[in-house]
């Protein structure tokens, strides 16, 4: 009996540790290691530090660093300037997204035509993207001043232009326009690439059916490029929430606080008013806003984005 049992179950072979599967896993970890180390050192640790700073009162000049728990967050909730700042941020973001994406899509559709010299037009509209942001903004600052180029141009048509950067409404519009013209080329190129990927036979079929051009755009073009629309909307919204240089150069947050957006307010509190702890709290708020908006957009993709597969 014993002998039979022994012969029926031969001694189990020890599985070698260094299997192909483990080797592949190790190779994978090694490949992602540089990126993971980079993210840890330059993203996760700073993010943790910002949160840690937000729990402190940090007076740089006096060299004091005192733990105060959620004190900065309470200040955030009762900050009288914050509603105005969040309002300006929302107006800027909405304005930028509508103008930027609308204009980028329009330009992409126009530049998707077979025209003579089309490459030149594409280059022309894309060129501001590669120009230095500060230099671009300084030039626009000169153009937009009361005795500047834009009003001089309007004056040749007998129109008295407004003092663009000195009125709350026109100041915000000016900042948005400067930003739109700076970056519209990037979204335009992405839309152009997406448009060129739409199967032409769909349009041919629609034409045979007698579908009008606008309906072709809404029923074929938009659904087919909707993944790109999602991508560009995420990039544009996140970018709009991080605008700084244009505000610093053009308006310094004014007139009043009409163009004081969240990042500029954060900069003022931390670096100008030396309230580093409160500045860190505002940056946590910015992080949360960006994360929530991106999450919502990502969730909306199921309803709004069309994938062929």
């Amino acid at each position: 009996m014993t002998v039979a049992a022994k012969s029926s179950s031969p001694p189990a072979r020890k599985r070698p540790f260094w299997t192909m599967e483990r080797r592949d896993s190790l190779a994978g970890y090694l490949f992602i290691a540089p990126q993971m180390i980079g993210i840890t050192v330059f993203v996760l640790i700073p993010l943790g530090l910002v949160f840690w700073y937000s729990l402190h009162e940090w007076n740089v000049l006096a060299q004091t660093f005192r733990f105060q728990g959620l004190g900065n967050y309470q200040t955030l909730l009762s900050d009288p300037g914050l509603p105005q700042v969040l309002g300006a941020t929302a107006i800027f973001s909405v304005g930028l997204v509508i103008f930027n994406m609308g204009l980028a899509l329009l330009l992409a559709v126009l530049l998707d035509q077979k025209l003579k010299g089309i490459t030149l037009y594409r280059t022309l509209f894309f060129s501001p993207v590669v120009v230095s942001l500060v230099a671009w903004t300084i030039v626009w600052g000169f153009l937009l001043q009361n005795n500047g180029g834009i009003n001089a141009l309007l004056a040749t048509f007998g129109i008295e232009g407004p003092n663009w950067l000195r009125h709350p409404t026109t100041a915000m519009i000016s900042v948005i326009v400067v930003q739109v013209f700076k970056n519209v080329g990037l979204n335009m190129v992405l839309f152009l690439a997406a448009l060129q990927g739409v199967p032409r036979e769909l349009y041919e079929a629609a034409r045979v059916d007698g579908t009008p051009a606008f309906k072709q755009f809404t029923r074929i073009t938009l659904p087919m490029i909707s993944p790109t629309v999602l991508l560009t909307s995420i990039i544009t919204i996140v970018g709009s929430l991080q605008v700084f240089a244009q505000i610093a150069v053009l308006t310094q947050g004014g007139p009043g606080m009409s163009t004081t957006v969240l990042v500029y307010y954060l900069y003022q509190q931390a670096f100008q008013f030396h309230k580093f702890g409160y500045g860190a709290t505002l940056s946590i708020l910015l992080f949360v806003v960006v994360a929530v908006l991106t999450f919502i957009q990502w969730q909306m993709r199921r309803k709004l984005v069309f994938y062929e597969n």
Partner: protein
Amino acid sequence: MHTKMLLKSATALTGLALPLATFGPALAQDQVDLRMTIWSANEAHLAMFNEIADGFAELHPGVTVTFDSLPFDSYTTTLTTQIAGGNAPDLAWILETTAADFVNSGALAPLTETFAATEGYELEDVTEQATALWRADGELYAYPFSTSPFALFVNNDLITEAGAQTPAELIAAGEWNWDNAIDIAATVADTGANGLIVRDFNYQIWQNLASIWRGWGTDPWSEDGTTCTFADAEMVDAMSFIHAAIFETGAMPGPGENVDFFTGDAAMTITQISRASLLPQGDEAFDWDLVPLPSGPAGNYSVIGQAGIGAFGMGDNVDMAVEFLAYLSNPENSAKLAQFFPPARQSLLNAETLGTTNPLLSPQQLENVVVAGITNGVVLPGHAGFAEIQQVARAELDALWQADADVEAVLTSVCNRITPML
């Protein structure tokens, strides 16, 4: 045999390492590298500072001083960011508006004892008035190396072409006051040129308007800094005067207009005398003059801008930094600094000394504008937490720079906003 060799090697290594371990740090300690932040990148300024630093290095072998030029617009922001990042300089220029923050925070090292003990320093030559901003509880925390009065540069060509009297003529007639000064500006503006510019104001840096409103004997807050006086009658009158000059007579360029006196486009500019270097030469030159600020309803007055140099108390070389500051501000080096930065030392405050280093200005201009200005001048308004007060008041004052503004209502709202910060 092998063990013997190993022992020998270990002994030899120890023999080499011990002296290095003992003297290495000592050598490192002897070398001191001081860093000072400044807001000028002017080559002539840097050459002068380097020359003074070389003189100090000769007296202190192993000590070097380097000057770190930071942009003026973001100077204090960059400086505090360096401090926050643990990279504070050993010494720094400090603006008068932020003096209270730096002096009262305890960030700066005390200077009085070292200055008093430095042979030939003559601390009593540096007037009490000049150092008032830089003291706390009787202790000096920064040296006021530049005390520069505000004055008016005048373009006589534009004024005479417009048919107006020049400021020099009005001074001679004893009629140099703000009403007449703004009339000149309005007359020139009527010809299509520009009238009066408050340089660097740009409808943002409102504290520079002190060069006008002090003529009405007013300031944004009380002397002890606890009460807002923006809405007082004198300030309302002064601001109404400025508002009318902008929006009624056009004597001052309006908000959003970029005009430069030194290109010959305006009749007058209020600025500090160090801007004389911007005056155009050769074919572009015009007939210019430098005159004191006009008298206001409250009489004659003068306003000065001041910059101090302090040594930070948090560094590794605090004593050496303070010693360098004592050397930099001794009588001999103060005379060198005077060619660019009007001095705080009484013995150097005369037209003769200043004339050797300011060849563009006549002895009369130096006496009437520089010496008198420094002697009688009051520093621009400053306050603890000034950056935030400045910003909040700036935002409120934006409502004033509209043609239909209610001056008193706007100034009352400025007070409502800044009072909790005073």
